[in-house]
């Protein structure tokens, strides 16, 4: 079924249609939550909260922009609210988190090193200022395009680009400081 049909049905309260719809976005929702809080349990909680909120608000979606941008927007706002209220990112350990790696990793040894590097990178990303961090996460990790990021954050595309430029630059400097670049292949 097409996305538009599913949205219309979901707007009328059809749970099945909503679930079918949200299947397409749940990974991105969960990943965004995880990247913001760096804790799998908290991220799960936040992702659930975001999805419920999307269901509550879906009636207000007016098809003016893309649905994915709208989903990201609701998710991001939910996460921000919760993070400000409840969670402190800096105290959370990501030790237990299994990070998927889509590259072809041959050995367990490589896998464990990749895990460590990912975790270090995540920690470095969490050190970026919020406005840079979210643009980097959306564009470079989640693959969201400039136009959509502009819709999600209500900023113009020029600002998105300049923030992304600064985010990458800062992250590179942090990686250099940590000697992490030698580990990246």
């Amino acid at each position, binding site marked *: 079924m097409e996305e538009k049909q599913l949205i219309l*049905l979901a*707007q*009328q*309260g059809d*749970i099945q249609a909503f*679930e079918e719809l*949200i*299947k397409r976005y*749940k*990974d991105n929702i*969960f*990943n965004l939550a*995880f990247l913001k809080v760096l804790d*799998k349990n*908290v*991220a*799960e*909680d936040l*992702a*659930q909260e975001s*999805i*419920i909120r999307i*269901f*509550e*608000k879906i*009636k*207000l979606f*007016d098809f003016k922009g893309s649905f994915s941008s709208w989903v990201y927007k609701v998710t991001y706002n939910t996460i921000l609210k919760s993070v400000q209220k409840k969670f402190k990112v800096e105290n959370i*350990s990501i*030790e*237990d*988190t*299994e*990070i*998927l790696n889509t*590259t072809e990793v041959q050995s*367990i*040894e490589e896998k*464990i*090193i990749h895990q*460590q*590097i*990912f975790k*270090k*990178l*995540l920690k470095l990303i969490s050190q970026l200022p919020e406005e840079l961090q979210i643009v*980097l996460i959306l564009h470079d*990790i989640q*693959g969201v395009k400039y136009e959509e990021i502009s819709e999600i954050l209500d900023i113009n595309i020029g600002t998105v680009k300049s923030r*992304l*430029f600064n985010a*990458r630059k800062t992250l590179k400097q942090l*990686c250099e400081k*940590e*000697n*992490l*670049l*030698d*580990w*990246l292949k």
Partner: protein
Amino acid sequence: MMDCNEIKIFIHKVLDGILLNETEYLEKYKEEYNELFSHMEKCLSCSYEYNSYLKILKFLKNLKVSLPSNFDSKIHQALLKMHQKDSKPYIPVNTVTTQKGGMFSMINSDKLKKFIHDNRSYIISTGIHLLLLLLFLNIVVMQQTLTTPTFITKIITNKPIEIKKQEIEIKREEQRPDAGSEGLEGLKGGGMSSPKLQQQLMIKQAQVKQINKVFTPIQNLRTQVRDIFVPKTQIAVKETKIRSDFRVPMQPKTQITSPISGSITRPTSQQTGTRNTEGMNVPGNYSDSGRPDGSPSGTGIGEQKGGTTGRGGGTGIGFNPFGTGTGSGNQGSGPGAGRRGLGGGLSGTGTGPGSGPGISIAPGGGQGTAVVGSAVSSQSGPVVTNAPSAIDTTSVANRQVTYKPNAPIGSRENPITEINILVEFNGETLFTHDFYLAYPENRLLIRNARFARSEVIRLGPYAVPPEQFLFYWHITANQWGLDRGVPLYQTIYTTDAQQVRIRKVSENVIQYKLEDMPLDVIRQMNNPKEPDYDDVIITIVYKGAAQ
């Protein structure tokens, strides 16, 4: 031609194209793209910049976290719960759409809500204008005593208006010459009106009073207007918070409850004159015959796995500089080795003398300071003819060695030449954790792991298996900041089974996980917790010369 600054900006456009796999994008900037690469062939700075970004972004692109198990079912349950709690009855979509005259059906109600939501700015604007109009009219009515138009009066008072009766024309009668003026005053006047006129005047007065009662000037304009325009039922979608029963309880974090395999237990004493090849043998390089030296009593490598040659009577490998061990001297099997041990142990009671040759790898950093003990027996221990092979680094350098790629790492054919260290720091930031290599050489590797520096260290070559490498943390605790009974300085070796967990990931990767808070301190705390062994996690990749 673009200069370096322009190139460094353009790099990001190229990266976007590469990351998003947009061939059209790359086609669009084909010329600049070619220029970038020809520039990078000459300019190291730009080339480094490009490669660094590319490395980082390729890694980031692959960053995905797996969804927790049962995530879908949890969402499903939460949605169902929310739907059940909703006051509105659930009407299947098909029935809603086929209902006729669905003025009051859910779909129309939703449409109305949506319409109101979409046009709320117009509605608010109209309301404000109407309010201003009413206010203006009210002022006019009150100040200029104009008659309020009926419909406005109706709106304002929200009460039915009685239609004003036609004024009765009062016919003037002839009055007596002594009669006063007409009207209400006439009753009080000097003369009397006629009874008929008096009656008519009374009626008129009553009518005027009645009309005055019907018209009520606006008392509380804002409240009244609000009552008119704001609907009794709330139309806007109210933001609801998720009730606690919708949430799925968080899973408890997994905790390490059992030690990870690979830790080494530490015997407190050693057998006299026996040789245990399992141990991390560190023979000395001095052939010293049968000196009745006291053995060091440190808790170092040599004490881990029983006696060896080379530790016999010498001042060997006391790692603990405070010398807390209680080892007794060997039965002279050793060659009096380890004079240049890795640490200075306190004296033990020697039972030497030992005899026999020893070979040393021994570039130990510390200065052994064993005190000579008194000889108890002159019986010589068994002579070890096949001492564990270790490499003298100087001799290896001068010797022809054929490296074999398939040889086990740390063997003679594939000695270790490099270690790559990856540090993850989660511990107390008030502590400083310096990370050292203790064996096969003594060397500071990472100064203050708080900054989680990762390093590539070249060493050796050492024909020492990775699991025999020994490291230690030197931890400086800020007692003033914590005041939790933490020793101000402590040295923890990777062989400390209480404080360190070791995980052999593969043949050449070993992970060391440190709990920097001493376990006895943890136990004495008000709320003792399980040690988490994640204060500093160090992953070491050993690389051989043949690789």
